[in-house]
């Protein structure tokens, strides 16, 4: 019961505490307007290159933009505590670590899902793509799976962020990697072999492909393999990220470097 309370209530409270700066005048430009312009940029690049359809870029970029909340927010849930000098209090508490850190991931995922769906709907309306009504719910489900896997990836960033001074650079590097390697804008088969190998183990790659197939009329059953792979990638990254954080905690306790910026 305590673990459940830490997971649910603790996670929500920490999200509100760490991201109270996300007032509408910051949230709307950064999280709601910026992805629309990213979509428009790549739609026009795509039209100029005559490589893929508008729908390709709308879906790819709408889903990929979930990386901003999923990566930055996930990294900041840990780095932010250190910045505010509360990380030591959290880690010295007897709270179980698994619900403590995973509970913080849930609001991040929900926020990422909302932003991706908003970008998909608004970007699609502006550009004028046609998605069958029956594909909307499965498309949103695929988006949710993508935000789950990217949040797991963000947990790795959170663990690495404990060892680094400048977490914003790390988050931006991870965002850039996802923009290039996941097929959001460049079809995977256009990439060289070594890049395709990296793509296959990154979040979003399989989920974006599944979302595009769903938008073209495929059912959830048709893309279950892709979504299962996407979810599995998220689980693996979450496990690695959790291990990183626990190891960083042990190292910092041993060397007394927990609060060092």
């Amino acid at each position, binding site marked *: 019961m305590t673990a459940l309370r830490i997971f649910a209530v603790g996670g929500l409270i920490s999200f509100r505490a760490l991201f109270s*700066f996300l007032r509408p005048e*910051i949230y709307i430009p*950064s999280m709601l307007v910026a992805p629309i312009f990213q979509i428009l*940029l790549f739609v026009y690049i795509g039209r*100029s290159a005559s490589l893929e359809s508008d729908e390709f870029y709308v879906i790819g970029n709408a889903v990929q933009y979930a990386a901003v909340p999923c990566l930055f927010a996930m990294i900041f849930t840990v780095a932010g505590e250190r910045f505010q000098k509360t990380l030591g209090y959290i880690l010295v508490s007897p709270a179980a670590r698994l619900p403590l850190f995973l509970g913080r991931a849930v609001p991040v995922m929900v926020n990422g899902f909302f932003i991706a769906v908003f970008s998909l709907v608004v970007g699609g309306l502006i550009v004028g793509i046609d998605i069958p009504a029956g594909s909307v719910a499965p498309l949103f489900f695929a988006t949710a799976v993508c935000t789950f896997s990217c949040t797991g990836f963000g947990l790795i960033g959170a663990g690495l962020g404990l060892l680094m001074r*400048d977490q914003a650079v790390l988050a931006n590097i991870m965002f*850039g990697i996802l923009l290039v390697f996941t097929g959001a804008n*460049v079809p995977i088969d256009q990439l060289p072999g070594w890049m395709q190998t990296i793509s296959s183990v990154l979040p979003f790659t399989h989920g974006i492909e599944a979302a595009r197939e769903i938008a073209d009329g495929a059912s959830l059953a048709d893309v279950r393999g892709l979504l299962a792979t996407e979810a599995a990638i998220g689980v693996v990254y979450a496990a690695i990220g959790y291990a990183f954080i626990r190891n960083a905690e042990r190292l910092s306790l041993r060397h007394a470097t927990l609060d060092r910026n």
Partner: protein
Amino acid sequence: MAKGWAIHFKQESRNPFFLWILICTPIIYATIAYFLFRGGKDGQTLAAAAIGSAMMGIWSLTTTASAAALAQRRRAGLLELLVAAPVPFWAVLAPITIAISAVGVYSIGASLLYTRLLFGVALPIEDWPAFVAAVPASILAIGMLGFLLGAAFVRFRAAWAVGNLFEFPVWTICGLLIPIAVLPAWIEPVSWVFAPTWGMNAMRDAALGEQSAWDDIAVCLGLTVAYCVAGALLLRFFLRSALRRGTLALT
């Protein structure tokens, strides 16, 4: 102003976050542009994309950092000192934003080097004098546009977020990676107001030799003056209001 520029240039060029923006932004977008455009028959498209991705890095840094320049000084407790100094405040802020933009030379170098080494895309410079003139003219104009943004957003607590809002739209409408001709017709006149449009035209024309770059360079210099005047007037208005109400240090 020259000393202020030099100090801020040294300071900003050591910021790891700024260096990330300047070096990695062009790498990311040059990579995407390469894979999207390499199937095209026009080889000059890739060369232009190398310049465009460099300009994207410069604009990305300028729009975010310059918009937040005053807010940062306010948080550091320096704003009142800077305003109280006998030097006109616009002469204090302008070197900061121009220095931020000037750090963009890292972006130009990174983009051209990266596309040459990894993709074998060489940038032929047809008109070297024009290209050498276009780079500082572009940086100066973009820096002064950053000065105008900094002055305009001084009242915003989260000026960086408002400045960040201009990142993707300017990338899109200024022809950095895509020809303006593919955009809706009404966007072209809007793009004329932004320095990256003319900076991109100047560097591309000087490099590829399709047209004379000197008229674009002249427009960059003209916009520099226009931004300076507009920004100075805005700063004067906001500072007078803040001094009258005693709200200069308040966020």
